């Protein structure tokens, strides 16, 4: 039962603290840290087992890197290469150098100083991206630059994990005497000669790439076709855990392996589904990880030397800010954008906690120093929301006049998400895509996904009624959402969800019939179109022609009908919304049908010329000017 009671305590702390922290604008990472502090040092509910839990929770980092990899389509990386290598690369290298120098000045050995520099160069992806997204700053110049730097940092974690063990100077073996991390694993290969080890490692990496490219697609497709969602989730977990184990077996970093697998799968149709399946596990495990970091914070240390600790945290922020501000200047960021970039990234990040643990077990940094630094990093993160508030309230308003930012890029105007690529969605989608718009398509039928893939349309497999999948498809940045699901109720549901959650997105919805139009409008659709209406109009027009009517005459007949039907749709809306299909609704409809008969019956040759009969009608016989 101990497992359950522990789980109860951890979950309880998270469930209470995280929503509150979020509401206060502090973000979930800080919420977890604070929750950890409360159950650890403050209340003393959890204690010695945190280290063990932490090792388990570190798997969240592995998952996080898998997700980071999934986000990195090779094509996108290539497009951003200048920003990534230039801006991001300089930030990581420059900050590493400065903090390493500071470390040396404080009397650290060079290996420890370099490790320290690398770790503090990272910023908090979780806090910054979340804030940029929430405030809608991600598409600004400053937001984009921040994004590139965060991306570079996330990638830089991989070589850091590889380099850290090489910097070992023998501090290890302290309280956490196990050989967790680098030197760990690889025993399986230890008996092999060096060159063969290298061959095996290269073969494993090649296998991941090849299998990811060619094997995973049919496997995912097979499983998706079974329509067992939990098995799809199981497969995703199996994939991540399998790769982690494999990497561990050959003595490489599991994070590196899953990151690589993520990149390989980032082009796949199943990316969004994988993302939304792994995301909750990653979130919880990472949360658990931050909880244990919070629980491990040494309060005696903080209260023993508050000036030193806060001084270090503020020094860290000021230094990073100065470096980022300088880089922003070099890279031509102007006004408010430069401030957003420099203030936003000035904290240290959650990866520091991971790398600290790693550095400790590898024996790169002293345990006592790490205790202090963990506090410093946590405090710098705690101060981040304050920096964003400073930007929003003080700097941005003043900089508005200076920043002569050109209008948002065109590609911003064109983010379209289509849910449902059946007979209806396909037509809409093709029209938009061939007109040059950027469209993200979601569909839950593997066969459709496969077929569209064959003709070169980018389609993602998944159930569009799942909120996480919609989020994964980028609805928060979209301008337009087109709902074209077959299932009538699901369609209304998804429209309602999107209308409530993404208030800026314009929603166009396909409706079954007139009543569904009203339903969808009530659910929040800005416009609803009856699916069969236009097709039936065309068919009716064709029928008139086949009955011997002149094609142009048939067109205007159909147009008359169309206009009347539209008018009826508008007129009946109130009746329907008031009481559904009741007597008043039916009466109104009867009246409309009567009018329609009158409109359509005119001009059979024997009736006299009427005002309702419009369009290229010859004037009366005789001299028309009379």
């Amino acid at each position: 039962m101990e497992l359950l009671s522990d789980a109860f305590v951890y979950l309880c702390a998270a469930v209470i603290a995280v929503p509150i922290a979020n509401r206060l604008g502090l973000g979930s990472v800080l919420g977890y840290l604070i929750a950890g502090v409360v159950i650890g040092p403050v209340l003393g509910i959890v204690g010695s087992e945190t280290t063990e839990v932490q090792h388990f929770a570190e798997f969240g980092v592995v998952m996080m890197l898998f997700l980071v990899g999934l986000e990195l389509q090779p094509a996108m990386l290539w497009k951003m290469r200048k920003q990534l290598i230039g801006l991001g690369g300089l930030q990581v290298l420059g900050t590493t150098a400065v903090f390493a120098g500071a470390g040396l000045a404080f009397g650290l050995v060079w290996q420890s100083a370099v490790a320290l520099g690398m770790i503090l160069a990272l910023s908090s992806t979780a806090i910054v991206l979340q804030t940029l997204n929430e405030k809608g700053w991600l598409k600004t110049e400053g937001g984009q630059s921040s994004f590139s730097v965060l991306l570079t940092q996330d990638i830089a974690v991989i070589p850091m994990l590889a380099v850290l063990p090489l910097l070992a100077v023998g501090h290890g073996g302290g309280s956490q005497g196990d050989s967790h991390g680098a030197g760990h694993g690889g025993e399986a290969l230890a008996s092999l000669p060096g060159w063969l080890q290298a061959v095996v490692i290269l073969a494993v990496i090649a296998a991941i790439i090849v299998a990811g490219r060619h094997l995973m697609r049919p496997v995912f497709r097979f499983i998706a076709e079974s329509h067992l969602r939990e098995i799809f989730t199981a497969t995703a977990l199996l994939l991540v855990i399998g790769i982690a184990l494999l990497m561990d077996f050959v003595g490489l970093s599991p994070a590196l392996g899953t990151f690589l697998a993520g990149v390989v799968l980032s082009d796949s149709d199943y990316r969004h589904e994988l993302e939304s399946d792994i995301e909750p596990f990653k979130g919880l495990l990472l949360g658990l990880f931050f909880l244990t970091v919070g629980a491990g914070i040494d309060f005696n240390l903080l209260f023993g030397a508050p000036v030193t600790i806060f001084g270090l945290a503020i020094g860290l922020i000021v230094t990073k800010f100065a470096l980022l501000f300088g880089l922003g200047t070099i890279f031509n960021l102007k006004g408010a954008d430069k401030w957003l970039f420099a203030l936003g990234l000035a904290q240290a990040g959650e990866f520091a906690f991971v790398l600290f643990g790693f550095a400790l077990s590898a024996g790169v940094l002293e345990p006592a120093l790490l205790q202090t630094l963990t506090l410093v990093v946590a405090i710098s993160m705690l101060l981040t929301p304050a920096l964003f508030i400073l930007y929003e309230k003080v700097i941005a308003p003043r900089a508005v006049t200076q920043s002569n930012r050109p209008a948002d890029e065109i590609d911003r105007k064109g983010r379209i998400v289509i849910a449902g690529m059946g007979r209806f969605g396909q037509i809409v989608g093709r029209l938009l895509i061939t007109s040059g718009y950027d469209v993200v398509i979601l569909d839950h039928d593997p066969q459709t996904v496969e077929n569209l893939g064959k003709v070169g349309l980018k389609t993602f497999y998944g159930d569009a009624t799942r909120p996480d999948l919609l989020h994964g498809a980028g609805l928060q940045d979209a301008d337009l959402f087109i709902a074209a699901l077959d299932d009538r109720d699901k369609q209304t549901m998804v429209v309602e969800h999107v209308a409530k959650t993404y208030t800026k997105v314009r929603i166009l919805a396909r409706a079954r019939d007139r009543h569904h139009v009203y339903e969808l409008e009530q659910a929040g659709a800005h416009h609803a179109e009856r699916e069969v209406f236009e097709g039936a109009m065309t068919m009716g027009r064709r029928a008139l022609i086949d009955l011997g009517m002149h094609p142009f005459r048939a067109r205007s007949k159909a147009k008359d009908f169309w206009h009347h039907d539209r008018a009826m749709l508008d007129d009946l809306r109130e009746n329907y919304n008031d009481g559904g299909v009741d007597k008043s609704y039916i009466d109104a409809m009867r009246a409309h049908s009567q009018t329609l008969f009158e409109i359509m019956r005119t001009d059979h040759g024997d009736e006299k010329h009427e005002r309702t009969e419009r369009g290229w009608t010859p004037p009366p016989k005789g001299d028309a000017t009379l």
Partner: protein
Amino acid sequence: MAKVLVLYAHPRPDRSEINQPLFETAKGVQGVTAVDLYAEYPDFDIRVDVEQERLRNHDIIIFQHPFYWYSAPSIMKEWQDLVLEHGFAYGLHGKALVGKSFINVTTAGAKPEAYSADGLNHSDIRSLLAPFEKTADLCGMRFLAPFIMFGAGRALEENRLNVHRNAYDDLLKAMVADRFDLEKAAKAKQISDVLDDFILKGEAV
């Protein structure tokens, strides 16, 4: 105060260098109703009642359009065919437009010299606009000399657009304020380069 209706027709406003800016100018003048026909009726389903009501409610009707094939873009012909019905615009009981004024605001690609007896077109532009003039006559409307930009294809490069926009602005404002000499304009050949001669000075009427 006269009510001015601008009916504008350009099938590719996104490619329009002159007409679209002129239309923007018209939209900005108080007392002017500016209608983009291609935007309102992309399927050519002109709503006759709406258009006739508009005509009744205005005193000066402006056709603003490029001079396509010695005429206007097709939607304007469609508009005439449908809206100017017997019994409304002409015929024994068709008096709805009597006494109103009509003017073409148009752009021609060729230089003014092309529109003369010995020029490329062998006739001046006012006589080429005869179908519009005769239509106005039949409807009992006063046909005003056209407001034209010649050589429209090179107007941007020659920095003539803004001059012309300002003149259009002046014209519309004068019309709204009843300070445009309609009688004189009806007798003129054209008004574009001599606009000031037609704008009444001093107190508004």
